[in-house]
């Protein structure tokens, strides 16, 4: 177990380096640099050249790459071309909103997915099972941006219950702490619901089939034969083994939690990692692109590791294999 963790952690650095290098190649292969796409009326050719000189955009790619690698090795992620601000500070500002949104969505995903699946398998092929199966398939097939658009129309435009975008109201700084918190929650509801609902459809679908599989096991029959109540059989004997794969799903959802949903964040103008990446890509803001992909890569790798470790913790058979 410990060896598994140490080995995977040792691989973390070369893997992140590989991902960053791939990103660098992708960015270098794309047409245009920051100096070409920067949109400022009346910018002369000389001034564009000055930008190129300042950020070394004219230098050979290899020397740009080595320069970037050198500064990252010393822990310096560079300075954003657009915001003229250290990338680390930019990331520190974009990460909390994404974590908040992702966390709320994950909570909704688990609670809703679990509840729907358990309620459905109480009576397989009953009306509730049929309705949730069809609803789940519908939500799974509808793109999240479509659901988000409908939610905005219904709850923000027509009913006016929740704000349509952004994380806080104008002038929210003036409010008291509690009012500010309420303001934040009101802004959080729609994006978190859209993100969580789509994920819950997948979780419920997955969990339902696992639960049905477990129901057919002989130890469930044995539990019933011992005279245990149906409720106890369902909640203890069926749910526990069925939850094993869900535990690993938790680890696998870490990357989405950290890198954010680009689509939902850009629809709701949520100032998180996904939106920042999209804007940085449009502006060819290379240091920011590199910084965000590296954070995303670390999150994926740690998420995979967490999933494997959690699985080994809950399933003794996997523990033997990974030794």
């Amino acid at each position: 177990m410990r060896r598994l963790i140490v080995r995977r952690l040792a691989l973390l650095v070369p893997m992140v380096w590989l991902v960053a290098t791939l990103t660098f190649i992708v960015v270098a292969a794309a047409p245009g640099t920051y100096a070409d796409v920067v949109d400022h009326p009346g910018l002369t050719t000389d001034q564009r050249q000055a930008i190129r000189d300042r950020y070394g955009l004219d230098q050979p790619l290899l020397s740009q790459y080595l320069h970037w690698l050198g500064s990252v090795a010393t822990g310096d992620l560079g300075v954003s071309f657009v915001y003229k601000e250290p990338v680390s500070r930019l990331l520190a500002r974009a990460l909390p909103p994404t974590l908040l949104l992702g966390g709320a969505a994950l909570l909704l995903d688990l609670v809703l997915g679990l509840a729907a699946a358990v309620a459905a398998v109480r009576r397989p092929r009953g009306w509730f099972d049929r309705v949730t199966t069809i609803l789940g398939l519908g939500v799974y097939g509808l793109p999240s941006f479509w659901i988000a658009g409908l939610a905005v129309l219904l709850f923000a435009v027509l009913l006016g219950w929740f704000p349509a975008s952004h994380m806080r109201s104008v002038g929210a700084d003036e409010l008291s702490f509690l009012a500010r918190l309420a303001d934040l929650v009101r802004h959080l509801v729609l994006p978190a619901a859209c993100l969580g609902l789509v994920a819950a459809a997948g979780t419920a679908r997955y969990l339902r089939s696992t639960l049905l599989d477990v129901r057919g096991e002989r130890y469930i029959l044995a539990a019933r034969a011992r005279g245990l109540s149906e409720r106890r059989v369902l909640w203890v004997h069926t749910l526990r083994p069925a939850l094993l794969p869900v535990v690993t799903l938790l680890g696998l959802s870490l990357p989405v939690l950290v890198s954010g949903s680009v689509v939902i964040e850009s629809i709701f103008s949520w100032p998180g990692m996904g939106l920042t990446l999209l804007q940085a890509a449009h502006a060819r803001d290379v240091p920011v692109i590199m910084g965000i992909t590296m954070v995303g890569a670390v999150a994926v790798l740690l998420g995979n590791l967490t999933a494997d470790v959690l699985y080994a913790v809950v399933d003794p058979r996997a523990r033997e294999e990974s030794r």
Partner: protein
Amino acid sequence: MTRSRRLEVGFGALVMLALTCFVGPLLRSRPPAADPARAALLPPGSRATEIVLDDGRALVSPRVAMTGDTVVVGGPLRDTELPRRRVTAMRPVRFPLGSDRFGRDVLDQLMTGGRISLSVASLGALVALLVGTGVGLAAATGGRLVDALLMRMVDAVLAFPVLFLLILIAALARPGPLVLVAILGLTSWMGLARLVRGQVLSLRGRTFVLAARAAGCSPTRIWRRHYLPNLAGPLSQDTALRLGDLVLAEATLSYLGLGIPASIPTWGAMVAQGHRVMIEGWWLATFAGLAIAFLVISLALIGDGLQDRLA
């Protein structure tokens, strides 16, 4: 819907959609010309008249009246009066699913978008299938060093959240259709490579393969008769599910304005346009979203059905 019928239902729905998109335009009469000034955002089921002028311009309006020698073409702000001799052709047209902001027929746009979604997704899946199978086979048969190298590469590509990578590349490069196919394929082959490698490694130790080897079968024959049939099931199931993901990915990119250039209508771009005119034109986003869902769900049913068959 019983479990065993999922494959048939999904496949039937897919064939129906493909026929509608590829053959449908041939069965319909020519869709009305786009007239953004007079025929924008007509609700579903609208009737209109298309008037072709002697200079080749076409006007489409739901209100056309003829008084003596002049034709009055109704517009949203003011009517246009034309002398009758300038009109070279006139025909009634219908907008079964309404028109968009530019006066284009939504049904026609949906069929064009469907052709794009279906082709981009299936070509992308084909690229993923080729690359994934190639890498998986190479890793399984190429010795320990090749295996370790390739699998670490797979891990590295998997370490990007896929949509993240897609959006990054698409935002940087503004792809044409073929580049989009390449990007979609090259970001979704990793799972397949793992699947193929795992399957081949486990098949190698199975008794029927050992028996075939012991009986003196040639490697080609073992591959053809034992490996391929056993690989086909998992591969086709994986591809059905992957197709759904690719359809959604293409739609997402188009929705964000990063996919196929905006001059070509795609389902994702139609939803984006519809969201801008939600109140005046609810039908735009609705029909495009339902079309995406129809395709993705039929693919999911095929995937589930195949899984039931294989299990």
